[in-house]
C-alpha cells in the first residue's frame, strides 16, 4: 500500500514465551538481549518515521507550541531548583578538593566547565526523562486505551503526526532550552555556596566563571541534548501508542518510558561525548 504508514502492530515485540525445554539461563539471557534489540529497532523505526513526518505538511504548529509550553515551561521550575541545588553541591565538593592545592580561585571556572559541558546536560536529560517521559507515556497510553487515538483517526486526523510528532519535536526544542536554564541555575547555585563560604562578589564570581569558557564548550554540549529530547519524546510516545491492557498498561507505559529513556540517554551520552571530542578536538 503506497503512502500508507505501517500499522502500529507492526512495531510489536516478539513473544517472551518459549517452550519449556529451551529455558536455560543462556536462552533466557539470549532472549532478553534479542527482545531488547528488537525493541530498540522498533523504537528507531518509530523515531525515524517521526523525523520524516516532521518535515511534511501539515506542520501542526499550534500543537507543537502547546507541547513546548507543556513540556518546556512547566518543567522550568523543576529544572531551575534542581540546577541551583546541583550547583551548590558541586561547589562544595570542588572547594573541598581545590583547597588542598590552594586553587580556590579556580572554583567558579571549574564549576562552570563541569556544569556546562556535562553535569547540566546529563542531569537535565535524566530529570526530564522522568518529568516529561512519564507524562507523555501516561497521557498517550490513556488516550490509547480509551480509544481517543482511534477517535482522532476517525475524525480524519493523522494521530501519529498530531500526537507523536508534535511531542517529539517539542522535546527536541525544549530540552536544550531547559539545559541552558539548568547550566545558569547551576552557576547561580555555585555562586550562592561560594558567597556563603568566602563572600566572593557576584561580579567577580561570574567573571571567573566564564574565564575559560567559550562557545565550543556550550554549543555542542547543549545541542547534544536535542538528541536526549528526541529519545525522551520517541520512547515515551512509542510506549504510549503501543499501550494495551487498560489502566495497568498505562502505568506500565509511564514507568517504562522513564526507565528506558534514562538508560538510552546515558548510553547516547557516551557516544555523543566521544563524537564531540572527535569533532571539537580542543574540548578533549
Amino acid at each position: 500500500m503506497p503512502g500508507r504508514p505501517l500499522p502500529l502492530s507492526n512495531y510489536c515485540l516478539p513473544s517472551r514465551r518459549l517452550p519449556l525445554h529451551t529455558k536455560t539461563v543462556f536462552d533466557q539471557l539470549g532472549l532478553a538481549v534479542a527482545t531488547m534489540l528488537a525493541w530498540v529497532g522498533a523504537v528507531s523505526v518509530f523515531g525515524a518515521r517521526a523525523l520524516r513526518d516532521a518535515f511534511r505538511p501539515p506542520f501542526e504548529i499550534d500543537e507543537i507550541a502547546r507541547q513546548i509550553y507543556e513540556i518546556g515551561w512547566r518543567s522550568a521550575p523543576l529544572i531551575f531548583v534542581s540546577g541551583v541545588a546541583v550547583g551548590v553541591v558541586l561547589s562544595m565538593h570542588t572547594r573541598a578538593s581545590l583547597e588542598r592545592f590552594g586553587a580556590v580561585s579556580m572554583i567558579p571556572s571549574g564549576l562552570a566547565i563541569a556544569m556546562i559541558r556535562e553535569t547540566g546536560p546529563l542531569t537535565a536529560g535524566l530529570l526530564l526523562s522522568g518529568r516529561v517521559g512519564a507524562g507523555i507515556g501516561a497521557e498517550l497510553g490513556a488516550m490509547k486505551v480509551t480509544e481517543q487515538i482511534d477517535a482522532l483517526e476517525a475524525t480524519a486526523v493523522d494521530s501519529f503526526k498530531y500526537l507523536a510528532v508534535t511531542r517529539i519535536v517539542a522535546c527536541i526544542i525544549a530540552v536544550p532550552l531547559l539545559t541552558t536554564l539548568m547550566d545558569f541555575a547551576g552557576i547561580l547555585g555555585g555562586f550562592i555556596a561560594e558567597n556563603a563560604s568566602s563572600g566572593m562578589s557576584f561580579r567577580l564570581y561570574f567573571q571567573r566563571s566564564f574565564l575559560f569558557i567559550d562557545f565550543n564548550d556550550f554549543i555542542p554540549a547543549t545541542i547534544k541534548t536535542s538528541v536526549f529530547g528526541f529519545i525522551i519524546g520517541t520512547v515515551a510516545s512509542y510506549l504510549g501508542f503501543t499501550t494495551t491492557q487498560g489502566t495497568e498498561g498505562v502505568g506500565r507505559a509511564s514507568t517504562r518510558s522513564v526507565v528506558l529513556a534514562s538508560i538510552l540517554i546515558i548510553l547516547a551520552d557516551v557516544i555523543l561525548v566521544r563524537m564531540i571530542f572527535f569533532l571539537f578536538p580542543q574540548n578533549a
Partner: protein
Amino acid sequence: MNDEDRDGVAIRLERVTKSFGGRKVLDDVSFGVKRGTAFCLLGRSGTGKSVTLKHIIGLITPDSGHVFVEGRDVPALNRRELAQLRKRMGFLFQEGALFDSITVGENVAFPLRRHTDLPNDEIVRRARARLEQVGLGGDYDRMPAQLSGGMRKRAGLARALALDPVILLVDEPSAGLDPITSDEIDQLLVRAKVEQGKTLVVVTHNIPSARTVADEMALLDRGRLVARGTSADLDRSDHPLVREFMQSQGGG
C-alpha cells in the same frame, strides 16, 4: 458513476476475515448496507461487532476480503484518500472517546476546526447546536471528566455528527444508558436517517432499540454472520440463537 452508486449501496463487506493473536474474530463476513438505511449488527459481547465497525472506517484492515465504502476499497486507500473518506463518516465510540484535555464543546468543535475554514463564531454556534440536539446545551464549557457515562456518549454522538456525515457508525448507543435517554438517542438516529438521509450502521445488543432504528439487521456469532434480514425475517428464523435474541427485551 460506478456500480456501487447505481445499486445505491453505501457500504459493502466482502468475505472479511480478521484474526488477532491467532484468534479469529471475523470469519468470512459479508453484507451490504443501502444508502439512507440503517443496519443493525447484533450479537453477544466479544463476537466481533465493534471490529466490524472499525473495518468500515479503516481503523482495522482485514486479513483477507474487501471493505467498500461508497464504492472505494477502504484498505487500499492511501492516507489522504482515507482522510477524505473519513470526513464523510461519523463514528460514535463505545465509551464516547471524548478528548479529555479539552472541553466538551471543543470536542464537538474539533472536527470543524480541523476540516473547515469557518470563522470561530460559526464553529462555536454549530457545536452548541449539536450539543443541544443531544440534550447537552448547557455543558459546552465542562470537561469530559465531569460528565456521566451517558452524557459522554451523547457528546460523542454530537461530535460524530459535527461534520454532517453521510455515513454514521454507532457503537452501542444504548449500553449503560437509562431507558429514557436510550430512547432519545434512538429517535435521534431515526431522524438522522429519515430526515437527513444518512446511512447508519449500529452495533447493539439491545433488541427493542434495534427494532426502532434498523431497516435491516444481522446477527454475529463468534465472528460469523448467522442471520440477516428485516426484524420480521429474524422473528421468523428458527436459528436458536436468533430466536433467543429476538425474544429478549433487555437493554444495555
